Every structure is written in structure tokens, then in C-alpha cells.
């Protein structure tokens, strides 16, 4: 009686722990090597030594990716990092060519959102700018900028909205024109006396060039002329140039 109850309990416990279920494996993409061989490095970089060589026809699991390197596991359980150039010719398990996921210049043409950081000169002062952009069409996009200007005598923060027209969106490098408006808040340095903070409206026009580099990366350089509508008799004109990088996604 007691024995039977024990058996019952054990059986229930056995099922409850899920041992009755089929063992669950984490699902990774599996591909077949089609290059004559693949070199497995100990780390995701050219400097890491090759410790194992996989052969054609071997089935491998793609575990993760870092920059251009894939961490793989062979059937024999060896784990290492392989450069993407060696995985370009891999096959799916059904024998079809495997399309290696990655970003290219085609994705650049289809981008929607973009963020970036640029550094440059704003009327003789150092300026750090960040922006976010949304592409309405391949040619036309809207941008919002926040710029921090750190000068010798005063610091400014500027916020701008502008429209950008990219002339040849299908080219890897393309010139563009921009037009926009915003506000600039200027506060003099603490070491100067009897000055007050002020906020003025601005308008600007500019041109620049943008180049697709690699993956999500874009290089961008531009020149803008700002007109600051001051409360004084004449308006102030500020020239700005800057260069930097942006990511699209």
C-alpha cells in the first residue's frame, strides 16, 4: 500500500518535472558549409587565433553575431567565431543558398529613421550637434536638431527643425540642400559680468554631402548659414560647418 503510494508520487513528480516531455533545444539557424573549409577563431576579430577548421558539408549552428563575425557551433560541439565572408556560400539544410542577414547599401536607400552626432564650428565656437531624422520619400526628409555651442565668452543651446532634400538618394555619396528654422538660447560665461541670457529666433539654409559607409553607418558633412533675429537693430549672421556620423534603422 505504502509502496504503491510512493510509486504514484514518484510518477507524478517525474511527469511534473517535465522529464516526460521531449527535451527542448534552443532554436538556432542551422546551415551547411559550402566553402572548402571554414576557419574558427577564438574571438570575433582578425587577431584571435584559429583553433579549429570546419570542412565542406559540415552542419553548423549560427549562435550569435558581433560586427562581421558569427559565433558558430559545429556538430562536434566546437564553438568559435567565423568571419562572414566564409559564410557567404553556406547552404540551408534543404540545399538552397543561405541568405546571410546583414545590412547593405540597399537598406540604406530604404531607410526611414536616422540619428546622428556631428561636431564642428559655430561662428568660431565649438559645437556638438545631435539630430533625429525621418524620411518621407527617398529624396525628402525632416530633421530635428539640438546643438550645444561652447564658446569663449558664451554658451548656447540651439534647437532647429529643417527639411532636407537629398539630390541623388540612390548614389552612395550624394549632395543635399537644407532649409529650416529654430531658436537659440545664449548665456554668457560666469566670469563675465553684467550680461543677461537671451533667446532669439533663427532661420538657416545650407548644403552638405552624405556618404554611406558600412552597415548602419553614414558619414555626413555640412555647411549652414544661420540668421539670428536679435532684438537689436541688425540681425546677426552665423556660419556653421560640421561633420559626423549617423546611424539609420
Amino acid at each position, binding site marked *: 500500500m505504502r509502496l*504503491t503510494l510512493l510509486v*504514484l508520487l514518484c*510518477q507524478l513528480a517525474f*511527469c511534473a518535472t517535465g522529464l516526460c516531455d521531449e527535451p527542448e533545444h534552443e532554436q538556432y539557424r542551422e546551415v551547411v558549409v559550402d566553402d572548402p573549409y571554414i576557419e574558427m577563431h577564438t574571438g570575433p576579430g582578425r*587577431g584571435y587565433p584559429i583553433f579549429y577548421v570546419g570542412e565542406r558539408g559540415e552542419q553548423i549552428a*549560427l549562435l550569435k553575431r558581433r560586427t562581421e563575425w558569427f559565433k558558430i557551433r559545429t556538430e562536434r560541439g566546437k564553438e568559435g567565431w567565423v568571419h562572414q565572408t566564409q559564410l557567404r556560400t553556406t547552404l540551408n539544410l534543404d540545399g538552397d543558398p543561405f541568405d546571410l542577414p546583414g545590412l547593405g547599401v540597399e537598406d540604406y536607400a530604404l531607410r526611414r529613421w536616422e540619428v546622428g552626432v556631428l561636431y564642428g564650428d559655430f561662428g568660431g565656437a565649438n559645437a*556638438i550637434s545631435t539630430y533625429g531624422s525621418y524620411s518621407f520619400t527617398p529624396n525628402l526628409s525632416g530633421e530635428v536638431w539640438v546643438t550645444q555651442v561652447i564658446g569663449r565668452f558664451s554658451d548656447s543651446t540651439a534647437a532647429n527643425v529643417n527639411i532636407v532634400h537629398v539630390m541623388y538618394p540612390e548614389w552612395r555619396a550624394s549632395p543635399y540642400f537644407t532649409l529650416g528654422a529654430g531658436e537659440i538660447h545664449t548665456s554668457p560665461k*560666469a566670469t563675465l559680468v553684467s550680461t543677461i541670457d537671451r533667446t532669439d529666433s533663427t532661420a538657416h539654409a545650407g548644403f552638405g554631402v552624405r556618404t554611406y559607409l558600412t552597415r548602419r553607418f553614414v558619414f555626413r558633412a555640412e555647411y549652414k548659414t544661420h540668421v539670428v533675429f536679435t532684438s537689436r537693430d541688425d540681425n546677426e549672421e552665423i556660419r556653421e560647418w560640421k561633420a559626423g556620423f549617423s546611424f539609420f534603422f
Partner: protein
Amino acid sequence: MESRFLLLLLAQAAVLVGLTGCGRDKLVAEDNGQPPVIEPDVERREIETAKIDTEDFEVGIFAGEISVEDFGVNSMVGAQFAYHITEGFFVEASVGRADTQLTSFERLSGAAQLLTDSEREYSYYDLSVGYNIFPGESFVGKDRSLNSATYLIGGVGKTTFAGDDRFTVSLGMGIRLMPLDWLAVHSDIRDHVFDIDLLGEEKTSHNIEAHVGVTFFF
């Protein structure tokens, strides 16, 4: 009595088999005994999009010491966020802060205070580009090796100190040790350079920071 328990056991086994589907294959096999009437001409082609976990982002915290020119060596804390573009290049945004000490002048004169408490706080942000100049392995003891990289890093940013924002150029180098694929331990030396006119005339000040940190790749 015993036979009743045996019956109970059998009934339970039957229920469990039914629930867990261990006997499903057999039933399906019986269903498939009859061949289907219409054999479809076109096989549905399965389009698979490979989902491979990409770990290009790195986030972490660090702590260390910063020597603020004229204002002593002070403990500091910070946070960093990086994106690895290629195996060589990465971009990094970092923030840090420290509470600075009195200058020697303030200490010796006893009375005059150059800065208020809030002005004495040193904080910065940096936007940098780095390059892994020496990737490789580091050996710990006889049997263990860690992936590591020595990198050069430089960037621009802003330092808020002594009541003003100061444009800052930072340059440095560091070592990244990776005990696991997703975990890194950093050790960095950075020089933050900016112009300051606090003590009368403008001068270029070098503020050297040494820190260790932990980051996670995701």
C-alpha cells in the same frame, strides 16, 4: 485491495499518456493509412528569415579616480554606451561625475573659497570613436585564456565645472578583457583637455582619469 491500486495506476498511466501526447504518433500513423485523394502540384516554399542574435551594443558602468587640475585627485563614477561598427571601430558615449576638493590655495589661506559646493562638482559627457588596435588573447595562469583588446579612443564633449560648460577634447587608451562573450571588464586611462580661466588667465587644463568598469554586450 492491491488490484484496485493496480487499476488506479493503469488508469493514471492512460490519462497521462493521453495528456502528454506520447501516443500521438501512433494515432497519426493510423490516420495516414489512406493516401490523400488530391496530391498538390506545388509544394509550399517556406521562406525563412534568419534570426540571429546580434550583439553589437555594449553598456556598462565604471568607477575610478580623476585628477582635476588644481583641485586634487577625486573619486569618480560614470556610465558608458558603445556601438561596435566593425571589429576594429566603435563609437562610445560616456558620462561621468566627481566632487572635487579644495585647491592648495584655499586650504592654506583658510578663508577664501573659490567655488561654491555646486560649482565644485565636475561632470562631463563625451562622444568618442575608438579603435581596437591590439586584439588578441591574454593568459591567466596556465590553463585559462581571455579574449582581450587594447584600444585607442578619442572624442569631444562637454565638461561642467566651476560654474561653466567647457568644450572638452578627450584622448585615451584602454584594455578590454572578456571573461565571457557578453561580459567585459575595462581598464581605461583618459585625458580630458579643456581651457579654463578660473584663476585669472586662460590656460589649458589636463585632467587625467583612470577607471575600471564592467560592460555587457547585447
